[in-house]
């Protein structure tokens, strides 16, 4: 490999990129913008679930239960309804996500120490959300129920409230979230955005960069030159990796300064992983560009191959453990899943080089395989 030729090609490519002012500006401006919007927009915290109550009882007990929902920050009580039909209408129209039906004689049953039953209706159109809403509703009802039992026991057994509480709830659970004590979802999502953004942007710029030459015909210069295949791939690769690495540093800074996520790992190890990751995604863009002939196809392929899979299979929205076997295989085929492990390890858990070793190895192998594939796929003697 002749490095002078590689450098010459890289310089030519770099000039071409910097001279397209708009593209160049966008390449640096868009990633942080995208990151800030996604980081603040994607949220797994639960609050203000719109809820309605159908109260057939209208007593102090039923109002007390309703008050529990009104008082909770997790729910947004939109009002009482008078008919079951109204529940149907509100849920179909997505105006309410849950409804509570309190039956007649609710108060009477509870006061006489007998069990009562309320019905809850959850909008299941988005199943994962239905599960969350359902569990929060159950928690409120369970705490109301426990209160009733405590009062009842204190009254019938003639014991002080504290002892009654102990009797009514013998087992309690103390939950502690490690690494992210307050469960700020920005802490989990924010660093993940580095991965997401760098999964899309480098492949697009790189693939268009190569296919443009094919479409314009300027690639004929390369075909007839002394450049060898590995040199061509490397020369094209370097400027894009440099741009993306600068992008990576900007995004890293955004996470620390704008999102204020604590960084507990080794910055150098993390930077190495990050650069390897952008090398992988850039190579992914290049390999796409060797398969297609038009820029349209390159852009669409790059978007489809990177965008939806990265959003769904990288572990950011969907926990990796929840994937089916086929899904996990798909996740492992993308560089994002390896980088995501490194992100989690570096930001919140704070493991150093040792913790990142497996990610670095995986991404390194990934990059080498892609590089070899690129060299094989690129041909200086194209058919037709």
């Amino acid at each position, binding site marked *: 490999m002749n490095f002078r030729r590689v450098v010459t090609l890289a310089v030519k490519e770099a000039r071409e990129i910097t001279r397209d002012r708009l*593209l160049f500006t966008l*390449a640096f401006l*868009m990633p942080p913008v*995208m990151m800030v919007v996604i980081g*603040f*927009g*994607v*949220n797994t*915290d639960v609050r*203000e*679930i719109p809820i309605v109550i159908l109260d057939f009882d209208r007593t102090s007990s039923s109002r007390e239960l309703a008050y529990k929902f009104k008082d909770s920050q997790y729910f947004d009580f939109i009002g009482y309804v008078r008919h079951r039909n109204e529940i149907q209408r509100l849920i*179909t129209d997505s105006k309410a996500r849950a409804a509570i039906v309190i039956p007649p004689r609710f108060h009477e049953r509870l006061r006489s120490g007998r069990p*009562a039953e309320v019905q*809850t*209706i*959850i909008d*299941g*159109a*988005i199943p*994962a959300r239905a*599960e*969350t809403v359902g*569990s929060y509703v*159950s*928690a409120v009802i*369970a705490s*109301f129920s426990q209160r*009733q039992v405590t009062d009842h026991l204190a009254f019938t057994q003639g014991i002080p409230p504290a002892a009654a509480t102990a*009797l009514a709830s*013998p087992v*309690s*659970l*103390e939950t*502690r979230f*490690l690494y*992210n004590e307050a469960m700020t979802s920005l*802490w*989990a999502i924010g660093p993940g955005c580095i991965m*997401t953004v760098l999964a899309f*942007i480098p492949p697009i710029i790189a693939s*268009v960069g190569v296919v*443009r030459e094919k479409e314009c015909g300027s690639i004929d210069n390369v075909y007839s030159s002394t450049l060898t295949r590995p040199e061509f791939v490397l020369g094209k690769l370097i400027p894009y990796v440099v741009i993306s690495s600068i992008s990576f540093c900007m995004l890293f800074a955004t996470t620390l300064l704008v999102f204020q996520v604590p960084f507990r790992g080794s910055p150098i190890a993390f930077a190495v992983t990050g650069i390897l990751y952008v090398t992988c995604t850039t190579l992914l863009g290049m390999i796409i560009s060797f398969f297609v002939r*038009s820029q*349209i*196809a390159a*852009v*669409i392929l790059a*978007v489809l191959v990177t965008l*939806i899979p990265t959003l769904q*299979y990288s572990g*950011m929205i*969907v926990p990796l*453990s*929840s*994937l089916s076997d*086929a899904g996990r295989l*798909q996740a492992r085929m993308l560089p994002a899943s390896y980088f995501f*492990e490194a992100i*989690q390890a570096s930001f*919140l858990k704070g493991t150093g080089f040792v913790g990142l070793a497996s990610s670095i190895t995986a991404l390194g192998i990934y990059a080498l395989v892609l590089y070899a594939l690129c060299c094989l796929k690129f041909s200086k003697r194209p058919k037709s």
Partner: protein
Amino acid sequence: MNDHGAPVLVWAWRLGVVCRKELVQFLRNWILALFMLYAFTIMAYQNATAISRELKHASLVVIDNDRSHASRSLIYRFQQPQFRIHELLESSRHGIERLDDGDAALVLDIPQHFDRDLQSGRPTRLQLQLDGADSARAYLAANYAGSIVRKFSADTVQKRFDDETLPIVQNDQRVWYSPNHEETLFLAIQDLAQHIFLFSILLPASALAREKERGTVEQLLVSPLSPLQIMLGKIVPMVGIILLASVVTLIFIIEGALALNVRGNLALFLGVTALFSASAAGLGISIASLTRNMGQVGIVSITLMPILFMLSGSDTPPEMMPDALLPIMYLSPLHHYLNAAFGILIKGADITTVWDSILYMAILGGGVFAFSLVRFRQSFR
């Protein structure tokens, strides 16, 4: 047909000619056509089945300091598919190590004398530690574990006061539209919407950008075509192709391979899809009218699309979004389309319920369309 017919017919005929040109161009790019077919069939199937946002096989490490009947019966309640018992440990120290390594998603610590305390009516406290770095999973796991322990606690109370009734409030929970938390239909529709959105933006945008880049747009400009006809010529054939692809997904994948039942009126759904696709195409054209080449189109749309995907309301509902971002969400045609599509296909809603989404989409579509028409006129004067 010649130019001597009625003006309306001439106009329509010319539009027909540009549409045909665009269609022929699309079909000759067979790699793209094949890939589009792949996206709307195999990929749609895969994305609908491979992922799940529910808690599955979260690996649980239990530190059982009591090793009694009661502790075992509690552990037994942490079942598949939500939890998978990874390991039983003897000392609390190793629990943290498992979390650090990422081997465990959660560690449950059962105290000594757990059984004895339960028997004697003394309150006991269990400790649960979760890996908060994976916040999506940690939330779900904490909710599940909480409800398991609540149930266990309630059962213990019930057993203790076996002979008397207690004023316990039972929760009879019904989940409408997906009683078993079946996610496939939701995922299939979400995926279809994303594919429609993606192709509707990219196909017209790149078709226009290519003409600009190669200079063939000059040819269009000297032809007897109005800017409106040129724009419609880019939008109409693409919307047609995408609509056809959506029908393929709906019939062969959703109703065929996945064997899902959709409710609602399919004609209404297709009408809404056409409107959505057209308004996204308008967005694509306005991106192309603001940029000069494919690279720029690519980078603008790849930035815009994930933002609009993530803010579409299907991952984060509107009530949880920061107020500053709500306008972006309401400006996204994808948000209104998903509302309408879930309403029609999952909830069986009719036009009286989804009319507002349709109206929003029409307004947004009209807005971007008018904008790009103005831009288009300016840039070619």
